[in-house]
């Protein structure tokens, strides 16, 4: 199958301010450091990892909210990087985003109608009446009353706000939606409602998702394939069955074993990692995980393991696997 999105060797280095104010910065944080992956039409690719591993930066690089340092992002075979701004704007209609915090992502001063219709206004689609009709249609699709169009965001609960966010993402009939921790700020019972909605919409509109989350249970439920990130790199990718039943990378193993128990009767074997994620300002030599890895060998310190390439195979970036 042809991938809908193809990402090759994507990099983002953020320069770090020097102590000397007018000197050019020489150091940089390697937030995303050579990431390859494919997303196929109709699937959900889950991206998991700890905070600071570069998941959200990667999401923003994919739809060019921040400009990458280097790399290729092919959406339907067209490279978004280096595209002129008009073409980019029209291509980007098909890539939408849902953000984590439903309290921060809706402008408190404008009504729901305007919030949802804003993409239409920007792309000059339809007139006032047709936009209103579209807003009402979208509100019903996400399970809200169409009268809510005349209300302000503060009148809604977190779950309802996230539904408004989803409606806004759907306005321009996108093909790919990037969900950046869409349910992390919600309570469990509400979280389940929003997840059900996202699943239903995917079937209905044949959407493709990139689903970023740190909650491995949510990811397992939502996703067809999973990419595990560590310190700006993808360390393992594969279908969820492969990764859950047969994790290859020692980091993936530790990550999955850290999920809290499902019942008081479960006896869980844990791989407790030492220390914390190293600073991306000064990443360790060789394999960036070697300092915390329980099975590291000498080679891990000096040589970087083979990177995960863009394909739908189960791969892990580890010397002991390859």
């Amino acid at each position: 199958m042809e991938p809908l999105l193809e990402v090759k060797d994507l990099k983002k280095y953020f320069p770090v301010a020097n102590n000397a104010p007018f000197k050019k910065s020489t150091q940089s944080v390697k937030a995303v450091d050579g990431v390859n992956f494919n997303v196929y039409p109709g699937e959900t690719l889950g991206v998991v990892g700890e905070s600071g591993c570069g998941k959200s930066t990667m999401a923003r690089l994919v739809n060019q909210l921040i400009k990458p340092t280097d790399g290729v992002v092919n959406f339907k075979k067209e490279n978004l990087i280096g595209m002129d701004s008009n073409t980019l704007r029209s291509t980007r209609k098909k890539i939408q985003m849902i953000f984590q915090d439903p309290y921060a992502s809706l402008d408190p001063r404008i009504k729901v109608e305007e919030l949802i219709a804003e993409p239409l206004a920007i792309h000059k689609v339809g007139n006032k009446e047709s936009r209103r009709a579209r807003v009402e249609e979208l509100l019903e699709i996400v399970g809200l009353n169409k009268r809510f169009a005349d209300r302000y965001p503060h009148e809604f609960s977190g779950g309802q706000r996230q539904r408004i966010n989803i409606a806004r993402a759907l306005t321009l009939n996108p093909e790919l939606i990037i969900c950046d921790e869409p349910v992390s700020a919600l309570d469990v019972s509400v979280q389940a409602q929003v997840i059900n909605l996202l699943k239903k919409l995917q079937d209905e509109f044949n959407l493709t998702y990139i689903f970023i989350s740190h909650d491995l249970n949510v990811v397992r439920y939502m996703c067809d394939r999973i990419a595990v990130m560590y310190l700006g790199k993808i360390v393992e990718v594969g279908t969820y069955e492969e990764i859950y039943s047969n994790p290859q990378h020692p980091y993936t193993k530790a990550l999955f074993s850290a999920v809290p128990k499902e019942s008081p009767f479960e006896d869980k074997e844990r791989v407790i990692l030492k220390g914390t994620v190293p600073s991306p300002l000064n990443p360790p030599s060789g394999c960036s995980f070697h300092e915390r890895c329980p099975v590291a060998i000498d080679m891990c310190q000096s040589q970087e393991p083979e990177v995960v390439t863009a394909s739908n195979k189960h791969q892990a970036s580890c010397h002991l696997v390859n």
Partner: protein
Amino acid sequence: MSEQLLSVQGVQVEFKSGSIITKAVNGVSFNLGENESLGIVGESGSGKSVTATSLLRLIPNPPGKITNGKVIFKDKNLLELSNEQIRKIRGNEISMIFQDPSTSLNPVFKVGDQIIESIRTHKNISKKEARKKAIEMLDLVGIPAPEKRINMYPHEFSGGMRQRVMIAIALSCDPKLLIADEPTTALDVTVQAQILNLMKDLQEQLNMSIIMITHDLGVVWETCDKVLVMYAGKVVESGSVKEVYENPLHPYTWGLLDSQITESHDSLSPLATIPGSPPDLSHEIKGCPFADRCPFAQELCYEKAPELKEPIEGHAVACHFQTEEHKLERREDVYFNGTTARS
């Protein structure tokens, strides 16, 4: 059975904003034994944090006020002590750690000074000895090179390390009771596993009791002996962790358990959800607070609030229909259709 350490009886907390009075906690009672750990679970706004902060009288007044109840700790009612007396208990016999490790430490003081302050407030020892104790504490909570780290500022620590510092401060005076308010919510899973492990180890080593407040049932299964399920400022169910997991009685607990994603859940069937949202606590609720969302609600539920009863010994539930003679049946499918009795 271990000896009783804390007994909370009918605590009520109100918050006043203009003429609106919100009853955040409405009659919460529980007991806690020595060396026991209790989990308090519930969704946001259920009153779990307010309950915990009210034990140490840390509710800001105004707007908050503890209007009723008793908190008996070692034969003393904490709610009747003078400010000076309660200060001797806070951080000394009862300590608390908070959710957000990045805001609960003072950014302009070295972490060592913050630990030493806590020790010297309660113990009459020299600065030098306190410093030695602080290094010991940092070592105990697993911070590498504590002699060096003691001179660092909070911003030089990662989130997990800061939470360790918080735990070190909380434990520096050997408390009998540690109240942990969502101690791992802001942390990553791998760090959460480290911290929970640490807390369990320290509980055994130091022989203390823990009240763990969380919205994550997994954390409760992991660390607690007993669990208290709260909804709209009330306890709806309580019992031993194993009992509540195996034989939950309240329809809200069923909903909570069913909406968790578990490994056995196949990804094709939708997740169970609890329809609607929690009630507004600024209005008087006449009947059962959960009635509006409950699939089993009947007329009686809207008219009379159920009391917390113990149909099974050691396992209490607040539901009209969960008494010995009248039992509701837990059904797997009940939360899928999204309908309630009245809608």
